């Protein structure tokens, strides 16, 4: 009987724990191998600009003179292409996703040797290879 097929499906699940999670209270843990936020380790980087040339979303601005790397988090699509092309293995993809932002101004992160600053966007200068929007 067709009617009882749906009923049995419903009865089977009605006494179980819901499969949905209580999201804001229980944040979702990304699975191992998930492509999340791009992580930059600037110790190895030689500022060769290979990553910025290849990035399909133009999310990277590398300045060879100033030795800076700017990652536009709102542009990055976490494709991992820069991870593949970097000769120094300076990039890796973390599993967790970038946190949401409310303003566009904090999207550019400027990395300098040894410390990371988050600040106002900087205009592309001199030797940078990809134009900001």
């Amino acid at each position, binding site marked *: 009987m067709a009617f009882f*097929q749906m009923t049995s499906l*419903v009865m089977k699940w009605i006494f179980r724990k819901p499969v949905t999670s209580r999201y804001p209270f229980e944040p979702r843990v990304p699975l191992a191998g998930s*492509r999340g936020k791009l992580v930059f380790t600037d110790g190895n980087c030689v500022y060769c600009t290979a990553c910025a040339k290849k990035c399909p979303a133009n999310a990277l601005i590398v300045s060879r003179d100033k030795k800076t790397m700017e990652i536009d988090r709102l542009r990055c699509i976490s494709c991992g292409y820069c991870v593949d092309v970097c000769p120094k293995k300076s990039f890796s993809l973390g599993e967790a996703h970038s946190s949401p932002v409310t303003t566009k101004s904090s999207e550019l992160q400027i990395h300098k040797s040894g410390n990371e600053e988050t600040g106002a966007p900087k205009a592309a200068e001199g030797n940078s290879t990809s134009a900001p929007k």
Partner: protein
Amino acid sequence: MARTIIPFGPQHPVLPEPVHLDLVVEDEKVVEARPSIGFIHRGLEKLAEKKDYVEFVYVAERICGICSFIHGQSYCQAIETIMNVTVPPRALYLRTVWGELSRIHSHLLWLGLLADAMGFESLFMHSWRVRERVLNIIEATTGGRVIFGSCKIGGVRRDIDPAMITHIQSEMKTIEKEMREITTVFMNDRSVKSRLCGVGVLTKQEAYELGCVGPMLRASGVAQDMRKLGYAAYKDIPVEPITRTEGDSYARCAVRSEELFQSVDIIRQALERIPDGEIAVKVTGNPNGETIMRTEQPRGEVAYCVKATGSKNLQRFRVRTPTFANLPAMLKVLQGCDLADVPVLVLTIDPCISCTER
């Protein structure tokens, strides 16, 4: 009876996609449907002239959020044909596995939306519950849930290790069992049947002449499936198109339900027979030539036309997506239907407007 025009969409509770229809109705009967599309044109074809042909894989994947992998795969296959690249067999098998996983998740999504369109909310939730398992496999193997990003020219970007293969095989058993429970309801439940049986009948002749593709065509009795061309691993894993003869909405639902199990079977065979070896070959140089690539997406046949002239940007890139091919048939079945059946009929072609408009 005077005719009235009722606008339907682009924002409508049952429509996941922005298509606009002007429904000319007489009483409760639709006499004509006039579509207008173009709400989400993004100019992706033009972008091929700006992006490097290797980077363009990422754009091709974003043509559609549901068939994303097969779009990327078709694009890579087209470039590989132009450049005479031989893809390693392991990569071909991996592409097949991901392609079929995306078919399962697309069909489960569609079944859920169909249930939602006819107001069967609990069935909708159950379909998407099973789909979540498939998405988790996809996330664990490719890193993305919707945009896989795992296909590249010359092969694939990630391998599936033996432990993962075992995990997928065991998950497939659970998924198959759970899908069986759901599709039984779709196939036998009285309320589902009363919304689908005999609604929007398209004869074999009409379906063929209107140029339908995919499940829409197969539900009318034409055994056409691009996987029979033998791309990727389908040359080793034969695929028999699933057909029905009724040509109504119920038949389309039945074809998609059966294709779920066919896909599970293909994944199982592919994982058992997957050869060892490289997953990608290095591709150098620029493409020069022109080709047409046809592949089978969850929604039907997609045709890619790629023209390259030896520079790193393509000269012309064109996609004929399955929904575009199915739109004339949708307008045909809408003629003479009840106004209340419009949501179901629009859904039975599995419309993907974002890829139609690119």
